C-alpha cells in the first residue's frame, strides 16, 4: 500500500474513531454503573434514609406513604437535616414540614393516614 493509501486509511480510521468514541464511552460508563449496582452501590439510584418529616419536606410522597405504612406516627415530631428545608437542622411534624415545602398533596396523604394538623401548623409557618 502506498503513502496515499495509508493516508486514506488513517483518515478513515480517525473519522471512524470520532463517530464511535462517544457511544463507546457511554457504554463504558453504563458497564461501570451496572457493575456498581451489582454490588449494591446504585450510583444512579441512590437510596437515602429519610425521616417522615424529611420525606414530607422533600416532597417525597412515595416515601411518606411507605413510612406511614410501616407504622410511623404521622403526628410525631422528627428531625430534618440542615439544607433540606432550612439552612439549619429543625424538628417538625410531617404536616408542618409539608406545609413549609408548600406541598398540599403531601398534607393530604398525611391527613388521610390520620395526621391531625394543629391550628398553629395550619396558620403559621413552622419558624
Amino acid at each position, binding site marked *: 500500500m502506498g503513502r496515499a493509501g495509508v493516508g486514506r486509511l488513517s483518515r478513515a480510521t480517525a*473519522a471512524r474513531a470520532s*463517530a*464511535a468514541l462517544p457511544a463507546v464511552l457511554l457504554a463504558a460508563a453504563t458497564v461501570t454503573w451496572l457493575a456498581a449496582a451489582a454490588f449494591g452501590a446504585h450510583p444512579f439510584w441512590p437510596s437515602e434514609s429519610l425521616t417522615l418529616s424529611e420525606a414530607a419536606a422533600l416532597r417525597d*410522597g*412515595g416515601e411518606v*406513604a411507605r413510612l406511614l405504612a410501616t407504622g410511623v406516627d404521622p403526628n410525631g415530631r422528627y428531625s430534618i437535616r440542615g439544607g433540606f428545608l432550612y439552612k439549619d437542622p429543625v424538628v417538625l411534624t410531617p404536616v408542618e414540614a409539608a406545609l413549609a415545602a408548600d406541598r398540599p398533596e403531601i398534607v393530604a*396523604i398525611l391527613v388521610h393516614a390520620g395526621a391531625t394538623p394543629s391550628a398553629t401548623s395550619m396558620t403559621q409557618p413552622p419558624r
Partner: protein
Amino acid sequence: MQTSTPFLSVVVPALNEEGCIGAFIDQMRRELSILVPSWEIVVVDDGSTDRTETIVAAEARADERIRLITRPHHSMVAALQQGMAAAKGRWRFMADADLAMPVDNLGRFLTLLRADHPPDIIIGTRRAAGSQRIGERWWRHVVDRVFNYAVRALAVSGIRDTQCGFKMFSAAAADAVFPRLTITGFALDVEMLFLARRAGLDVREVGIVWHGRDDSRVGLCRGAAPFADVLRIRWRWRNVYAIWAYALTAILAAGLAYDLLRMPIQVFDSLGDILAASQSRSLWDSFESAFGGTGYFRPLRSAQIKALFDLSSGRHYWLVFRGLHAALLVGCLWLFIRALRVKTATDFAAAAFALTVLTGMFTFRGTVQEAFPINHFLEMLVCALAVLNLAQSRAGWGVDVAVCVIFAAAVLTLESGLLVWVVAFAAWVAGMRGMSRRGLIGLTVLLVGYLFVRFEFLTSGTPGLSERSAGFLLSVLDPPELQQRFGSQPHVFYAYNVMASVLAVLFSEPQSGVFVAVRSWLQGHVPARVIVSVAASATTTFLIAWAAWHLRRSREPLDSGAQLLIVAAAVLVANAMLSYAYTKDEIMSIGGAFYALAVYAAVRVAIDRAGSARLVACACLATVLLVAGGAWAVRSAGLHHTLRLQAFRHRGDWAELPARRKAEGERPAEVNRGWLVDALRNSALAMPAPNPYFYPRWAEQVWGD
C-alpha cells in the same frame, strides 16, 4: 489453442475416477455443444493412482477445449481452487465426475442465466420444484436432512440442499469465494455458500435429477465431523464488527432495562385499564369491548392488557408488565442494530453513532418512559423494525405471511400500526429484496379491510379537536381554546401538527408542538439541554441531507444506505401525517427511530468520504462527528435521568391515590377492586426511587424536562 473467453467453464475435481471420467467428458461435450456458444472443461486430477490422468490427457490432446491439470494429492477443495483459478469462462460450473446428475440437467442452470438480473450463483438442489432423487438409501436421506437443518440454523439459512456437487458461479463470484475456502472436508459446500452470502452474492436454487451412489462421499461413518466443520465455519468467519455492535447494544439495553425494572407501574392512563382487565371475563370480552367506540379502534390493546393481567396470576403485576416493557426495549434495540447489517469497521462506527441517536432522541424518551400499562408505542416500533428486518431478508412465503401478521397485530393495537404498511411499501420501492409484490398486495388488502371496518362498518371516526390539549407555536392550548381558534378551519391546525412533527424529529424543535427554544430565547434564558438537543439534531440532519446528495446517483440495485434513507424519509412523512390530530412525542417514535437509521447511512457516507478527503476536510468532518456524537451521547445518558425521575413520580402518584380519590370521589371499579389497587400500591411503595433533591444540579440543567 483457445484464447478468447469461453462462455462456460466446467471444472471437475477428479480422484481415481477412471470408471466414469471418460463418459462424463463425452456426455458433457455433447451437451455443451448444443447449449452454449463456447466452453471448456477443466479436469483437475488430484493425484489419482488409477488411469484417470491418462484418460483425460488423451481427451485433452484430441480437443483443445478440454484441459488437464495434475497435482499431488491434497484435498478436493485444493483441486477446486486450482481448477477455478485456471478456468477462463464467464460462468464456471463445478461438477462431480460421477454423473450423479445427468448432464442434460445443465440446461436448467442456463435457463436462469437468461433472466434480466441473473443470480451470481446457481446451485443444484435435490429439494426444489422439478427435483428428483433416484436410488437414494433412506439413511442417507435422513442424515442429509439432519445435516441440512443444522446448516440452516447455524450457517446458511434458507437453502434446502447445500451439498449437491453441481454449482454454477459467475467469474466474479468464483473469484470472491474459492480463494477463501478453508474447509477440506464434507462441509466445504457450506463454507462456499456462507462466504457467498457474506459477500452479498445472490444465490438461487434449481431442482435437478440426482442418482444416489453407494460409494458416495457421504456416509454415517463421518459422524460429527461435518457438524463440527459447520461450527468451525461460523467461528472462523465470525463478524467481529457485528459482535462489537451487538455487545454495545446489549450494554446500552441492559442499562435502560435496569432502569425500567426499578420503576413502578404507573397510575394515570394505566390503573383504569388494569381494573377493566380484572373485570373482563375473557380475552375475547376485552377484544370485543373495543368495538363501537369513537375516535379510536384498538381491540388488541385491551386484549393484550387482559392477557398480561391473567399472566400475573394475582401477584406478579409489576414483574409481568414491567418485564414486558423491558423485553420490548431490548427487542427494539436488537432489531435496530440487526437492521443496520454491520459488516465493517465503518459500519460499526456508524452503528455506534446511530445507537446514541436512537436512544438520545426525545421521541424515544417519550416512547420508553411511560406504559399504559403496556408500552404500545414501543410495540409499534418493534413491529416496524421487525418488518424492516424481514424486508432485508430473502423473499418467500414465510416472510409475506409474517409481515401480514405483524401488520394486522399492529394496526389492531394502535393507529400507528399503519406505519408498518408504509415501511413495507417503502422497502419495496427501495428494492429491498425481502419485500415481494405478493406480500405487498396481501398487506394492502389488509389495509383496505382495516380502513373499511373502521370507517364504514364501525364508524369509529378519528380524534377531533376536543380530544386533548395540544401545543401550538409557543404555548399549549386546551381543547376549548383549540375549538375557539380552529373550530371553523381545523385543517390549518392539522397542517401545523404535521409540519411540527417533521421538524421535531429533524431539529428537536418544536417539542409536543411548542417551540421551546424560541420561547426560552424570548424569555431571555435558553437552557443547556435545549441548546444540546437542537445543535445535535440540526448537525445530524445536515449530515443526512449531505449524504442523500451524494447518494442521489445510486443506480439499481440501490446501495443499502440509499435504501435506508428512502425508507426513513417515507416513514417520517407518513408518521407526521398520522399525528395530524395532535402532536405528542411518543407518536413520532417510529419516525424518530427511522431517523436514526438514516443517520447510520449518513455517517457511513461521511466516513467513506473522509478517507479520500483532504486533511483539513477530514479533520473538520471528524470533529463534527465527535462533537455531534458527544451531544447525542449526552442526550442518551439523559434517558436514565428521565426514567428515575419517572419512577419517583409514579411512586408519588400511588402514594397520593387514596387521598385524591377521597377528595374526588371514588370510582366504582376502584372500590370493587380495592384489593387490586392496594396490591399495586403496596408494590409501588416498596420500590425505592431516588429523590430528585439528591440529583446533581447540573443534571436538571442538561437533562431536565
